[in-house]
């Protein structure tokens, strides 16, 4: 827009004059078009000076226009020498023409105007200091003049503060588009409240004038500052740059794009604080680049803004880059004087450093500037936060810590990546994990070989059915259940007596057993039990052995009978009474005890073993009318010490056996059903009963407190709670025994209740613990937070995956070694039971459930158990080092005390716990969770011999771990260390 002098008062004479001038100009133009060498002088009539002046002005403008179009660059001096009397006019004309050209580059444009419209000077609102506006503001002084009006300093009489008022100038008042823009400015600017943004308070009206009230900033704008002192010192540049980033980020967060960023719109107040002002052409940005007209200042427009009228947060970032450049060098990146120049520059706007950068910080700033000023918006930083991070001193966590505040969850996510692994290290870790995995697989293969699980559960179940048939039970059962178990009493006995390893694997008697149950009705485990296989799974103890017709059978891994329990039915009793041999369709030729001993393969003994009769001592759980017992002794003396003595007890109803036991010295004498020894001992009972309520109460208290203080990250808590709910639900649904019975409903209800409890527990714990973790060790939450926010391609996440998996492999390996070493050396380790998890072998459904459960447990263990301990210790012992040591010692003691080989276990667990603590402190929560996941997975029996029936499960586990580790490696390698993280693309 041009400001022109009020040229002509309107009167008839003036119109006549204008007409005359017009005529002369026409003639001149026609002549000029024919012959460009015509001279102005020829067209000047003999008029008074006052009339000649406007004529000359018009003619000159005309000539300049035409000559410029031809590419000439006329100079004012030549004209001044020709018309010395009109020197002023000539300079004015030149200034106007040039400033028109430049102004259109420098001044904020609101719409396209290819033509320049004659505008007369807009009359000022003419407010004098002292006048009161809207009954509330008293004008103090004028601060400046803008395109839309003037800015005054005023006192707010109501609040007693100094404010700045931006008034719409009179001529602009009546235009509703202007008013609309003002209202828009106020509305948008008001949503941004930030120390680096000039606060806008309100819009007001006084008589017919509208005005905007905003924060009064006692200082000057950046443009005048730079003009005054040139280049700014580096520290100042960094400081202001960070402040600008903060302010702009605040605006972008509210969805507001400024679109007119330039040094003139940056105010520096008395304390040196930068503030963004003038949201006059701002707009709300809703995700798509908008094109609603050419808005902004041409010299600061991004290419897509200038050429395609598309604005987005990236175009603001471009302008930011230019501002940084100006602060650093004192001038605009390019010497642009016309629109063509501008167009050319915008096709390649990236500036190069002018001189050798003196410091690393300066190099970083240049780097940032170049990044911001990329012509393609997609190549620029995806958000202002990325710019801030690239600048030296831009890590939000470091800043938060330096200022003594707790970083917010967003700051944690936005933190810079440090402690990344360089490619060599990453490959090394990967290699360690893979090698460890192979070693573990090898050890397992060896172990399985020794245990001798050569038959699958189904095959063994089929063998059990065959045994039962041979014993006289040939009715198809209503429902079946079966599985593997470990005879812990036997193991303990072996350990205590320092027996050799092959004792364990010696099939007679074995430590790993197969159990089988059948029942005429559905086997519905009505009682939930967390310590067992899963929540609601049928096992040896649930449902209770109480329905007539129920059969429970245990065999070794090859199908030899070890135990039998049958609850006789009425039918069986009647048969027994009648003395019939068996049911009609079965010929029983042998007496029942022979059949039993056949099934137990005790009939034809070798190796000098003898079966001698003795009096029975045990009672069956049901009813029996005949009882027998034997002793298994070795005849020769040499074996007597090595092999323990075994007893055989049996009973029958009629001709059908209902009871059988193969017992050693280790079996508790009167046990007929699963022992329930866990409940004994007053101290133990107290601890068991009390620890959970304490945990719940304490957790709830802390959670409540954190919520009240607004410290918690409720969003992530909700998310993780929901995930764990899903995990619990899925695991239960997959693993539990489902029956086609009305009782299934009860079971589902119980499952739902359990999942809900898990969810509540997880949520409560997260809310209670996470804020303090964020306060004490914010870096440990980086990978975790990013994953929770959905950035699963993030390199920090990858790092945690890789390192956690490797650590998990090592820990699993150590646990295996802990159990196996004593065996190789000549003893038995009773920790064998804790390193094996047989359930994945029971079918694909269960395998899947186990894997999901392992993931869930990984999270639970990592966060809740260990974190809690660590934190408590930290609070008590004050330093990380002491807390870490105490943790290691305490946990090792806790674990080792349960095992016979105390010192060995202590050593191995010590290493494991140290690894855990180091992993946590150095890498983070996510790494620890992954470690636990992998460790749990390594408890699955696996083998390199793929023909084994259970090879699937182990293979699944190995593949899962390998995939996880490879994924971690890939994520780490895929993103170079110095570049931005994928967190930028989301949280920007």
């Amino acid at each position: 827009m041009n400001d022109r002098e009020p040229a002509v008062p309107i009167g008839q004479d003036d119109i006549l004059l204008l007409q005359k001038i017009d005529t002369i100009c026409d003639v001149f133009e026609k002549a000029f078009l024919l012959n460009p060498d015509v001279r102005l002088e020829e067209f000047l009539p003999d008029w008074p000076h006052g009339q000649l002046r406007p004529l000359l002005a018009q003619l000159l403008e005309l000539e300049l226009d035409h000559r410029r179009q031809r590419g000439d660059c006329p100079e004012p001096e030549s004209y001044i020498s020709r018309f010395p009397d009109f020197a002023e006019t000539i300079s004015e004309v030149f200034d106007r023409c040039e400033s028109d050209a430049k102004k259109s580059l420098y001044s904020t444009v609101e719409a396209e105007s290819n033509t320049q419209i004659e505008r007369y000077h807009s009359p000022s609102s003419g407010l004098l200091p002292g006048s009161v506006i809207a009954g509330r503001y008293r004008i103090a002084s004028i601060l400046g003049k803008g395109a839309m009006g003037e800015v005054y300093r005023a006192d707010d009489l109501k609040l007693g503060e100094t404010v700045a008022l931006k008034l719409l100038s009179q001529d602009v008042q009546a235009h509703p588009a202007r008013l609309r823009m003002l209202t828009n400015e106020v509305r948008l600017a008001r949503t941004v409240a930030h120390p680096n943004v000039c606060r806008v308070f309100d819009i007001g009206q006084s008589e017919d004038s509208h005005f905007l009230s905003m924060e009064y900033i006692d200082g000057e704008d950046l443009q005048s500052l730079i003009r005054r002192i040139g280049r700014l010192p580096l520290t100042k540049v960094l400081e202001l740059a960070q402040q600008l980033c903060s302010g702009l980020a605040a605006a972008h967060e509210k969805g507001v794009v400024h679109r007119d960023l330039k040094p003139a719109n940056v105010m520096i107040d008395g304390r040196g604080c930068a503030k963004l002002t003038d949201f006059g052409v701002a707009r709300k940005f809703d995700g798509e680049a908008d094109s609603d007209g050419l808005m902004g200042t041409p010299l600061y427009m991004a290419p897509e803004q200038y050429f395609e009228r598309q604005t987005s947060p990236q175009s603001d970032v471009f302008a930011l880059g230019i501002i940084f450049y100006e602060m650093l060098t004192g001038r605009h990146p390019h010497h642009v004087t016309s629109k063509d120049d501008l167009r050319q520059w915008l096709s390649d706007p990236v500036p190069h450093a002018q001189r050798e950068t003196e410091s690393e910080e300066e190099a970083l700033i240049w780097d940032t500037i170049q990044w911001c000023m990329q012509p393609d918006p997609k190549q620029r930083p995806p958000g202002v936060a990325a710019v801030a991070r690239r600048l030296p001193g831009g890590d939000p966590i470091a800043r938060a810590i330096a200022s003594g505040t707790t970083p917010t969850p967003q700051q944690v996510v936005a933190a810079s990546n440090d402690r990344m692994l360089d490619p060599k290290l990453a490959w090394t870790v990967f290699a360690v994990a893979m090698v460890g995995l192979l070693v573990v697989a090898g050890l397992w293969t060896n172990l399985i070989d020794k245990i001798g699980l050569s038959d699958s559960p189904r095959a063994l179940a089929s063998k059990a059915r065959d045994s039962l048939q041979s014993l006289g039970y040939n009715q198809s059962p209503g429902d079946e259940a079966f599985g593997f178990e470990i005879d812990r009493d036997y193991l303990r006995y072996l350990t205590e007596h320092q027996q050799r390893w092959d004792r364990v694997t010696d099939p007679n008697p074995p430590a790993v057993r197969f159990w089988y149950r059948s029942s005429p009705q559905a086997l519905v485990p009505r009682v939930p039990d967390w310590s067992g296989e899963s929540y609601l799974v049928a096992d040896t103890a649930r449902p209770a052995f109480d329905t007539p017709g129920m059969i429970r059978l245990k065999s070794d891994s090859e199908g030899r009978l070890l135990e039998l329990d049958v609850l006789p039915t009425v039918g069986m009793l009647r048969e027994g009474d009648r003395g019939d041999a068996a049911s009609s369709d079965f010929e029983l030729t042998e007496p029942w005890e022979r059949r039993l001993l056949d099934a137990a393969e005790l009939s034809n003994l070798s190796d000098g073993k003898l079966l001698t009769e003795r009096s029975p001592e045990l009672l069956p759980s049901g009813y029996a009318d005949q009882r027998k017992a034997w002793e298994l002794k070795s005849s020769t003396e040499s074996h007597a010490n090595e092999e323990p003595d075994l007893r055989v007890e049996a009973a029958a109803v009629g001709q059908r056996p209902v009871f059988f036991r193969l017992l050693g010295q280790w079996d508790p004498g009167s046990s007929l059903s699963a022992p329930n020894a866990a409940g004994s001992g007053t101290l133990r009972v107290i601890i068991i009963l009390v620890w959970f309520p304490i945990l719940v109460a304490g957790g709830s208290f802390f959670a409540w407190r954190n919520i009240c203080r607004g410290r918690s990250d409720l969003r992530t808590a909700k998310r993780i709670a929901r995930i764990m709910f899903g995990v619990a639900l899925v695991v239960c649904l997959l693993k539990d025994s489902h029956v086609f019975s009305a009782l299934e409903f009860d079971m589902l209800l119980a499952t739902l209740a359990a999942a809900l409890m898990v969810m509540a527990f997880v949520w409560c714990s997260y809310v209670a613990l996470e804020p303090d973790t964020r306060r004490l060790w914010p870096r440990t939450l980086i990978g975790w937070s990013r994953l929770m926010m959905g950035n699963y391609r993030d390199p920090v996440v990858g790092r945690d995956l890789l390192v956690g998996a490797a650590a998990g492999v090592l820990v699993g390996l150590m646990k295996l070694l802990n159990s196996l070493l004593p065996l190789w050396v000549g003893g038995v380790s009773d920790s064998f039971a804790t390193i094996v998890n047989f359930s994945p072998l029971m079918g694909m459904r269960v395998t899947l459930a186990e894997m999901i459960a392992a993931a869930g447990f990984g999270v639970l263990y990592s966060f809740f158990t260990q974190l809690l301990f660590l934190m408590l210790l930290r609070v008590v012992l004050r330093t990380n080092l002491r807390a870490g040591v105490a943790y290691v010692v305490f946990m090792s003691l806790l674990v080792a005390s349960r095992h016979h080989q105390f010192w060995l276990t202590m050593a191995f667990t010590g290493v494991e716990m140290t690894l855990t603590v180091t992993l946590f402190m150095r890498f983070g929560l996510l790494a620890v969770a992954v470690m636990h996941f992998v460790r749990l997975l390594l408890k699955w029996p696996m083998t390199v011999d793929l023909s084994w029936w259970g090879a699937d499960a182990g293979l699944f586990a190995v593949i899962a771990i390998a995939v996880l580790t490879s994924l971690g490696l890939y994520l780490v390698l895929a993103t170079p260390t110095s570049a931005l993280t994928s967190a930028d693309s989301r949280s920007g």
Partner: protein
Amino acid sequence: MEQFDQSVTQWIDGVRSGRDDAAASLWDRYFRRLEGLARRKFGSASRRVVDEEDIALSVFDSLCAGVREGRFTQLRDRDDLWRLLVVLTARKAVDQVRRQTSQKRGGGLVRGASVFAGGDDNMPQSIEDFVAAEPTAEFVALLEEQFAGRLEQLTEPVQRQIATKKLEGESNEAIAQQLGVSIRTVERKLNLIRLTWAAE
């Protein structure tokens, strides 16, 4: 009446000094209504001025063409001549009605009164009111009259061309190109046209 005159003066001043005027959207709507009216009453007139010797016989051709090309939507500098024309016509109409009602008692001149939608009793108080109301066919006829008269006022044929083209909504640049002169000339002459018309 006084108010109306006042607002008219304001508007004319505004156009004269080349300031932006208010109520851009009002004018937008007004133009479209005018166009709609023209089409209904006068048939679809889409003749365009091709020959520079040929001056548009109907100012409505210009308006219709311009509106259809979408020229009156965005840029304010394109319609100030229009507004001037309409404002002048409105003023003329009000003057007429005033004269008629002062001369006669009772029924006023049919023509004058029905210029304003709603009849004699609802004469607009200001130009804004006027623009906000529906244009009537009678007003359109009056407008044509004004236009013809105003064109007569312009002495130069070039000025008449420029005025016509401007009323069609062409930009200054386009006019300059079509006439083979510089933009400065177009601007200068436009200024003159405005002053001439507003001078009364």
